[in-house]
Each structure stands twice: as C-alpha cells, then as structure tokens.
C-alpha cells in the first residue's frame, strides 16, 4: 500500500513537534501553567487523604507520600491512555494524510504525559523527602529513567490498542471513563495492600497495574528497585505489545476510512 516514505528519525522529529505543541498549550502561562498542572494531582491526592486518613482513620504512616508517589505515575497512565484512545478520532484530517504512521499519535499522548511527569518529579521528590523524611538516593539518576522506559513500554501498547478499537467501536471512550476509576480502586492506590485480607493478596498481586505502581512507590519510599514486580510489569508490557501488534495488523488498514 503506497504511503509517505519516512525514517525512524523523521518519526522522532514528528513526535517532538507534537509534544512541543501540547506542552505549549498546557503550560502557556509559564510558571502558572506548571503550578496548575501539579496542583490538580496534588488536589486529588489531598481529597483522598482527607477521605481515608482523616475521615476513615486509615492507619498508615506516611500515607500522603504513599498517595503522591503512586498518584503521579497513575495520572500519566490514565490520562495517557484515555487521551490516546481519542487521538485518531480527534485528529481525523491528520490520520487521513499520514498513512500507517498514524500509530505515532497515541505514542505522542504517552510521551506528552511522561514529560508532564518528569516536570513534576522535582516537586514529587521534594514531597517524599521533606514530608516523608525519606532519603533521596543518587541511584535514582539511573533508576528513574529505567522506570520511565518501563512505563512507556507498558502504556503504549494499551494506548495504541484502545486508539485502534475506538475507531471501530466508539463506545470504548466512555467505557474507559468508567473503567479507569474502577481499576484505580481495584489497585492498591489509596490503600496499602496490607489492609486487604491475606487470602486475597495473590489476586491483587496478579494485577499488572499494581506491579507497576508499587515499583514506583518502592523506588521513592524504599529507595530500591522492586525487581520481581518490575519483571512482572515488563512481562505484561511484552504480552500487551504482542496483542497490540496483532490488533494493529487487523485494524490499522481501515482506520483512514472510518475515522
């Protein structure tokens, strides 16, 4: 099928342009835009803190750090996937001109959210150290990039898969809108796994999202990579990648028509 000819470097440049465009839009107020983007996630964490720590009297030391350390990666994941799901439909004229390279559009959603996450990291780390009394570790300099790569590998297959499915079954968008909050509560995010009854722990541990989020928390709060969970999350990323590849082969050719 004839398409515009591209190289990997050219696709990377295109990704860069898309990401820069989104950042300009999000942070157009400069400092104020940055503060606002952070404030949103902090506010969310604050609401859960009030609900669970104060009202429900959850007994957990450093609960605020537990929340924050998981919330930011989670927002990257959920906003990345829900944004990517719409990316073909919302950018229909673009999709019609791009040929099969349109697979880069969901990637740009994932990368944009990663950039927001990276920009938020100094504040997150400050919170972990100052509010939680944890030590910042030099090893984070290489461990954080590793986790970033893991999360991209984990999230992109999901992003692309849902973007493709959404073109055929438009209800996926609102379904994800319900699905993600459900997943959020099914995953130990606002509660530690310790309050889950012991016999159920194994089922919670099967949740790949839990493995990923717990790895982030382990990094910030224990200062170490949680290798078993990282391996599990990586395994899921590979499996998701394989399934998405099959979906792509089946669904991608007609996206230009249906979008």
């Amino acid at each position, binding site marked *: 099928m004839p*398409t*515009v*000819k591209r190289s990997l470097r050219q696709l990377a*440049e295109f990704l860069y342009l898309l990401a820069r465009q989104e950042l300009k839009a999000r942070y157009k107020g400069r400092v104020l835009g940055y503060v606002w983007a952070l404030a949103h996630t902090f506010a969310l964490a604050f609401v859960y803190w009030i609900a669970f720590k104060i009202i429900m009297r959850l007994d957990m030391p450093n609960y605020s750090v537990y929340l924050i350390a998981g919330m930011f990666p989670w927002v990257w994941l959920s906003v990345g996937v829900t944004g990517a799901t719409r990316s073909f439909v919302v950018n229909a004229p673009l999709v019609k*001109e*791009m040929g099969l390279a349109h697979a880069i559009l969901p990637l740009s959603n994932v990368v944009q959210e990663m950039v927001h996450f990276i920009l938020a990291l100094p504040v997150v780390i400050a919170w972990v150290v100052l509010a939680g009394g944890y030590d910042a570790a030099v090893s984070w300099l290489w461990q954080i990039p590793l986790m970033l790569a893991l999360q991209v590998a984990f999230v992109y297959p999901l992003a692309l898969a849902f973007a493709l499915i959404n073109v055929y*079954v438009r209800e996926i968008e609102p379904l994800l809108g319900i699905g993600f909050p459900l997943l959020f509560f099914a995953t130990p995010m606002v509660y530690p796994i310790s309050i889950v009854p012991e016999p159920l722990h194994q089922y919670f541990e099967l949740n790949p999202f839990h493995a990923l989020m717990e790895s982030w928390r382990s990094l910030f709060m224990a200062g170490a990579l949680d290798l078993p969970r990282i391996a599990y999350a990586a395994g899921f990323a590979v499996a998701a990648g394989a399934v998405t590849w099959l979906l792509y082969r089946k669904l991608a050719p007609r996206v*230009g028509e249906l979008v």
Partner: protein
Amino acid sequence: MTHAVLCEDLWKTYQRHRPLGVKSLLLGADPPRDTRFAREWALAEVGFQVPRGRSFGVIGPNGSGKTTLLSILLGTVQEDRGRVSLSGRVAPLLELGAGFHGDLTGRENVFLFGSILGVRLAEIRRRFENIAEFSELEGAIEQPLRTYSAGMIARLGFSTIIHSPADILLIDEVLAVGDASFQAKCHRALREFRARGGTLIIVSHNMKEVTEVCDEGICLDLGRVVDAGPMAGVAARYQERMAAAESGKIKASAHAYR
C-alpha cells in the same frame, strides 16, 4: 517508460465498514448498512496511468468517487480489488487546513505539515524562507492560524507542498479557494514542478483550470471512468453532458458512456 502512477482495475466499496456500536455487537444484529453511499461500489473498474512529469486531471460530479480515488492513491484507504502503484514521494493537499492546528502560527504549521509529509526538520528549515515568500503572507505567518482566512490557509498549504521534496502531488479541489492572482501563481509553480520531473494529479471542478494545468485526465461518474484522454476533450465533453442534463435532454448516467 516507467509510470509515476499506475492504477489497474480498482474497486472500492464502503458498505462493509461502518463503525459498530456496542448495542449491535451485544445483540448480534447485522451491522447497519452504510447509507452514506447510494451505490454498492464507490469505485468500479477504475484504471489509468500517469507517466512521470505529466499532470493528470480527475473531474466528475459530486459523489462520483474522486476523493475516494485520491485517498486510495495516498494510501489512507485500501482498495478492495485491483492494483495501485506510485513511484516516488507523495505529498497530498486534500482538505483545506488538514493537519493544520489553529493555535499554532503559520510558521509552526509549516513545520508540522512538513513533518506530516515526512520531511526532516532541517530540510524544512532550509526551505522555509521560500515557502514564506511564495505564500505572500508576510507578517501573518507569525500569527496563529485561526486568524487566517480560507484563502490564506490555501496559500500556506500549497506553498508548503510545492516546496516539499515530493515527486507526486495529489491536490483535491483546494486551489479554488485562492484569488485569481494566486491561482495563476500556483499554475506557474505547478508547471515548473512538472518541468523538474514532478507528477501531478489534481481533482477540480474548475474546467478552465483543469484544462490549463492538466495534459490528460479522466472523468468519473458514479464510481466509473466514463471518459479518458487529453484533458481539453474530456473537460469539454463533461461540460456538454452537464449542460444537456440540466436541460433534461439526456440522462447523465454511466451507462451511456461505458
């Protein structure tokens, strides 16, 4: 002679591909038949060849399949039967402002569009002065695109593709938006493009323009090629048929011209 664009026995239907709702999936109902198109085949038995360096016009009434044909040539839509082959880099100008973003400036949109076309950023930077100059937008090129008129958007879009390193240009009815002097400028630029060995396929409703710019062409009606040959003849006969249909003397259907 190697052809730049080759199309053989092309067939395309839209009927199978309507997006399904969850309701149909769950209830097992038959997918609703796509009623966008009144006929089964959007394109049927379409074939033509365009040698390198030639310009080729596609004309026909609304709904005859012209845009579908261009989408298939570009590769965004897949043909159901037949063979399509293009040799060379393709640059499309299909919808006014497609791929352009209202919040970005003209300059930023040139880079974005260029990147969509597959051009490296360094290359776009090198050509930017020429693109800006050709568009005659001057200061407006630093303004956000949402402040542009349709004519300005057409100028920016055309200027970008004519300066891109493309071998084949696919243009769909966009030039009609520019004013007379800009259209003349475009025609000149397209002639220079062909002199460099570029191939052009243009869809137009403007018979004067299409006769001026194109050497050969086809006329589509209801998805079929009803006329082919030197552009002047194809355009003239099309106009006669339309005039006659207007006055109700002949029924302008594909049957008479198979």
